[in-house]
């Protein structure tokens, strides 16, 4: 189950926005099993440096290019840990700007059938929370084509692992932050503190049902970007995502200057282009995961995944052209 980490030489890692060597040095050469006990990122190098691990600079760079960023959700551990990392590399090569590594969970109340199915299968195959760090290292590895990296996880796995320990290990692995679908800022005091210590983005969700008061409260707790769930409902492709999403993004912008990225429902290049005209980032999950779950073989899955990722990447690039 443990993925190949031989090529991981994170001491050298300098990806855009990485915090520099000081942080990575703490990881030492010991990357065998559990590296986390009591690890505190050396120095935590003060706020200025810590902020550099954010994905916000990637989103700003895309803004400078006159386009939305493309964010791809893929669950770690499906079809296997190695296979999921391969899939992440495929989408990065296809032009994805930020990978959202999903941690499979036994009770994913925000997810539709496609992602549930992949999660169940990944758990059956023994995926562990620590595999998230392996994937984060691979995605941010400068030896490959590095991309930004955030984790999407339901809250109980983090609670069980230890909030502080999780934040330290994710930061050490090069991850930039965490999207928390079932953790609202009101309950997130410990997480916000740990994220602050380790320079991680905390990405909370806003929804079409959010009141102006909630939008103000939630966005003021966010760092990195704000995750706007485009529709009321769970993850999964939708025929149409436009209007409610546009309205939500507009209302969210009244509350914050942070980038606003739209998730839930986008499955085609055309939709990515449509959403990319008003959002700072387009988040695609189920449509990509389906490429893997419905494929006849892992190779076929990766091929389909690459095709769709390129279509989506073209979509966001052509959106404002």
């Amino acid at each position, binding site marked *: 189950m443990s993925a190949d980490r031989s090529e991981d030489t994170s001491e050298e890692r300098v990806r855009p926005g990485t915090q520099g060597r000081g942080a990575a040095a703490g990881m030492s050469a010991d990357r065998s099993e559990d590296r986390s006990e009591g690890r505190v990122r050396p120095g935590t190098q003060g706020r200025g440096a810590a902020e550099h691990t954010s994905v916000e600079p990637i989103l700003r760079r895309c803004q400078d290019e006159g386009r939305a960023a493309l964010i791809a959700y893929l669950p770690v551990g499906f079809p296997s840990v190695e296979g999921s990392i391969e899939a992440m590399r495929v989408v990065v090569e296809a032009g994805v700007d930020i990978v959202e590594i999903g941690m499979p969970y036994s009770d994913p109340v925000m997810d539709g059938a496609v992602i549930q199915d992949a999660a169940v299968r990944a758990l059956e195959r023994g995926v*562990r*929370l620590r595999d998230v760090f392996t994937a984060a290292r691979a995605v941010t590895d400068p030896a490959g084509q590095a991309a930004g990296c955030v984790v999407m996880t339901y809250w109980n*796995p983090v609670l069980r692992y230890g909030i502080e320990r999780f934040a330290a290990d994710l930061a050490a692995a090069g991850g930039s932050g965490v999207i928390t679908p079932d953790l*609202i*800022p009101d309950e997130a005091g410990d997480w916000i503190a740990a994220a602050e210590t380790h320079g991680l983005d905390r990405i*909370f969700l806003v929804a079409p049902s*959010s*009141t102006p008061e909630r939008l103000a409260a*939630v966005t003021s707790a966010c760092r990195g970007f704000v995750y706007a*769930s485009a529709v009321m409902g769970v993850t999964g492709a939708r025929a149409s995502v436009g209007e409610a999403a546009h309205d939500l993004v507009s209302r969210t912008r009244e509350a914050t200057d942070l980038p606003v990225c739209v998730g839930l429902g986008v499955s085609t290049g055309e939709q990515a282009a449509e959403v990319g005209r008003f959002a700072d980032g387009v988040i695609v999950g189920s449509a990509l995961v389906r490429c893997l779950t419905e494929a006849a073989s892992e190779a076929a899955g990766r091929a389909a995944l690459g095709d769709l990722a390129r279509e989506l990447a073209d979509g966001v690039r052509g959106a404002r052209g």
Partner: protein
Amino acid sequence: MTAGASPSPAPGRFGGFGGRYVPEALIPALEQLEEVWRKAAVDPEFVGELERLHRTYTGRPSIITEVPRFAQHCGGARVLLKREDLNHTGSHKINNVLGQALLTARMGKTRVIAETGAGQHGVATATAAALLGLDCVVYMGQKDTERQALNVARMRLLGAEVIPVRHGSQTLKDAVNEAFRDWVANVTTTHYVLGTVTGPHPFPEMVREFHRIIGVEARQQVLDLVGRLPDVVCACVGGGSNAMGIFHRFIDDAAVRLVGLEAGGSGIESGHHAARFSTGLPGVLHGAFTYVLQDEDGQTIESHSVSAGLDYPSVGPEHAYLRESGRAEYRPITDTEAMQAFSLLCRTEGILPAIESAHALAGAMQLGRELGRDAVILVNLSGRGDKDVHTAARWFGLIEPDAPDDLGTTR
């Protein structure tokens, strides 16, 4: 309340337990629910309407019954049953459902959804929906629809749509997941009638308040009959609504022991049980921070019990608090112990209990033997066992086994 704010307790905490661990999309609905409920709770019109339904529809107050022949197996202690099994629809669940259905109408919503395990909460919700003219969808794990086929038919007769859930373990926890998914998508028209004292705030507190009448009635009934308070109050604990209902009025009576009985399944050592307080750890499931059966990565571990209504890997957060504070104690009762108590009550008193409630009866047998003949034990008989005849008949070998083995203990 947000970034960097002091960790002042969020609303709906019982000690450190409870809270609101749900998608942001649901927060406005939870805020609306709390507001409407708090106003209704002090509105004479609402209180009067609920009281009228209790009296003229449910059949409240439910009686207490002393069971001397059963008590001979309880160390000679006096055993009193609070007869929630005699309520309309056959269990305590109707108390909560009527309250929430009235709130649904007050919120201007036209559709209710519910999860159900044994089917009792689903039946109660379908009943209230029929009474108040609401659309009703009930989510039920596929395995539970097989174990409780009779209740599926009852719900459909009452006009509800029953949707079998085929994800995950196909039991109660997956039905809850599916109900949450429905709610996120349909929250503007739909109220989620959560069936127990867990979930995000305000559900644990609100559901407890709707069931609190059980303890209010029972406390006075015991005083009237015995002339003093009971030594022990026993109740089975799945999510824990009947237990919170009967416990709450006694919390300030420090001399009254409160004992919750969890499903010990095939035994704690077997790993096949629903004894959250024996092997569970604090964590988050279904919106609340409480005790959860979970592995070392925080993944939920499936529970097991002969009783579908106790077959749940988490427990209401107020129970977690009562346990941590020492005010209540919790014990596991195995399937075998529960079924012995089930059989005993049938044969000694002519009362067929729900298998869930039989766990509380087994607890009374233990406590009676520990405390002896001067003790007075109040047991919440939370439901009747008509729905369990098939399971019990197979357990005791009274009918030919079915082809597919769908008994809970063998899952």
